[in-house]
């Protein structure tokens, strides 16, 4: 039995005074916030090319002739910001789903959102299509549509019998939808040309090299909305992770909290995947590591994971773009190579 997180611990921090939780929250945010900010400030200064920051920020050189400035502002900065946005969205979605499903192995991709997004992206990569949805180009737009479709199907299945979401149905429906959509993806790939299959496979490995601010601007509203919903959740998550009945007994509107958790986590995941592809391991490693460091209270875990997730993905992408330059390592490979062994170590150590 894996008992890694809050599901096993029922001594809830209710008794703790408001002042004390505020103090802990403040110190956590300062600690993890500093880490995130330092990572995001340092990351654009490093890369496969060495640039001069003074030259990059020199306004007397016209921008279209300033290579250093373009590397800094067009290549690196959007990439680091995308890493921060995606990392914090995936880590937070992981925290929320692990608590709601009472399953420490839940990830943002457990409920089929990423498979839906992948199918959308595959279809455009393989069959082509030159449409755009506002600032979204074809591939991200299609993956967002795919994610929305998968979320809607899972939600409908899990709420069909009555008002509340059945977490077991949610899990099973999500896992089944994942395999089903993966089968369709395989079929679509089988019909395609080698070059397109390769590109499709590459998309699944994740990529933060967005090369402009437009994709960020497109994803930002979704992520902001998801985080606004996350902010309503921590106390209910503390109780939900103990059990539905316990939560209901303590006055939590369980169906509402579950819907909120599911919708917000799906929104964050969809935005992240459409921006950068399904980057694995962030959504499972970061929450567990954070719980190890700060305990199980979601009022602390959630903001800490959001900040740590940003730092983690930005750091992984830094390795991805520098280790083998001029060739890059797909960022999803880096997160998995760091995250996989680390997670196994965590499992062994705990049991």
């Amino acid at each position, binding site marked *: 039995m894996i008992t890694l997180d809050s599901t096993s611990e029922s001594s809830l921090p209710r008794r703790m005074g408001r002042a004390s939780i505020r103090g802990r929250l403040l110190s956590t945010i300062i600690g993890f916030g500093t880490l995130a900010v330092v990572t995001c400030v340092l990351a654009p200064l490093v890369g*496969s090319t060495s640039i001069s920051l003074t030259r990059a920020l020199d306004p007397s050189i016209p*921008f279209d002739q*300033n290579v250093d400035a373009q*590397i800094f502002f067009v*290549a690196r900065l959007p990439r680091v910001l995308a890493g921060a946005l995606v990392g914090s969205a995936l880590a937070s979605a992981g925290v929320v789903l692990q608590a709601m499903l009472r399953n420490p192995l839940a990830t943002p991709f457990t409920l089929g959102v990423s498979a839906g997004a992948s199918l959308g992206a595959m279809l455009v*990569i393989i069959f082509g299509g030159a449409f755009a949805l506002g600032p979204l180009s074809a591939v991200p737009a299609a993956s967002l549509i795919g994610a929305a479709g998968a979320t809607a199907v899972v939600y409908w299945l899990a709420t069909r019998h009555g008002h509340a979401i059945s977490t077991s149905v949610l899990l099973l429906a999500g896992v089944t939808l994942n395999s089903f959509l993966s089968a369709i993806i395989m079929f679509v790939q089988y019909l395609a*040309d080698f070059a397109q299959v390769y590109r499709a496979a590459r998309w699944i490995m994740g990529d933060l090299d967005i*090369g*402009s601010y437009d994709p960020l601007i497109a994803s930002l509203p979704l992520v902001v909305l998801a985080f606004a919903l996350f902010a309503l959740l921590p106390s209910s998550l503390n109780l939900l992770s103990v059990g539905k009945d316990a939560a209901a007994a303590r006055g939590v509107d369980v169906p509402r909290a579950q819907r909120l958790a599911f919708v917000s986590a799906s929104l964050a995941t969809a935005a992240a995947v459409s921006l950068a592809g399904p980057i694995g391991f962030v959504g499972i490693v970061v929450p567990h590591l954070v719980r190890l460091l700060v305990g199980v209270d979601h009022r602390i875990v959630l903001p800490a994971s959001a900040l740590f997730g940003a730092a983690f993905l930005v750091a992984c992408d830094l390795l991805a773009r520098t280790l083998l330059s001029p060739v890059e390592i797909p960022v999803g490979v880096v997160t998995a190579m760091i995250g996989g062994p680390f997670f196994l170590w965590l499992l062994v150590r705990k049991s």
Partner: protein
Amino acid sequence: MAARSQKLVALVAFAVVVFLVDASRAQDQAPASAPRRIVSLVPAITEMLFAIGAGPQVIAVSSYDEFPPEVKALPKVGALIDPDTERILALRPDLVIVYGSQSDLEKQLERSGHRTFSYRHGGIPTVLNSIRDLGVATGHRPEADKLASSLQSRLDAVRDRVKGRAQLRTMLIFERQQGTLRDVYASGGVGFLNEMLTFAGGRNVFADVSRESVQPSVETMLARAPEVILEVRASGLIEKTPSPERDAWSALSSIPAVRNQRVHLLTGDYLVVPGPRLAAATEAFARALHPDAFK
């Protein structure tokens, strides 16, 4: 005059080597009789077969074959990862052309007594040698030798035409996500595209990367600062002004090619197939790189 005679000596030496190599090959592979039922699973080879006059002997091709137009009427028997072995055997071929990685299929065919011809993509020398080998294997040796030498002389003519002009630092792109600069695939310093670029008077900005393809990040593209960006695609991407695909580059204005409007978009399946049309493709590259040399 001295340079000319040196060149002649080199040419003769080359011809002798080719002859010797060919003679030994011819002994190894000399067919009892020329095959009359050829199945080709490699589109580039299909093109070569038709170009050396072995087209009428081809009875089936891969599912990706589109050129020459005659192949459209032929049965399709799968391709690299999904060859339809049963159908191939049912067609009673006397020569099956397989790709180098299809070793299982090759063994299976050899066990059942079928002659095979294995091929792997390589540089231009591989293409020319394959044409000569196919000539021997199919009984079209004179035509094949003629085609190979005419391709070589067309390539040399392109090189001579742009000789003395600045070797432009070029990024040769063959794939990217439409309308964006994500998912960019460029030619590395190995392979036929890189060699064609060199004949056409360009210097690959990724010549130092000893792979066929590179996936450069935006940062790498900015840092390599190519003077010309040559984008080639089998289909899609059409050169027109204003072009949304060219506009995708405008964000990277510090790249000289972008600033000086030297982003060239070329479309056509002949551009990306390592077959008998590669001389035409090299000429197209050279026209884009050095338009003045063709006035």
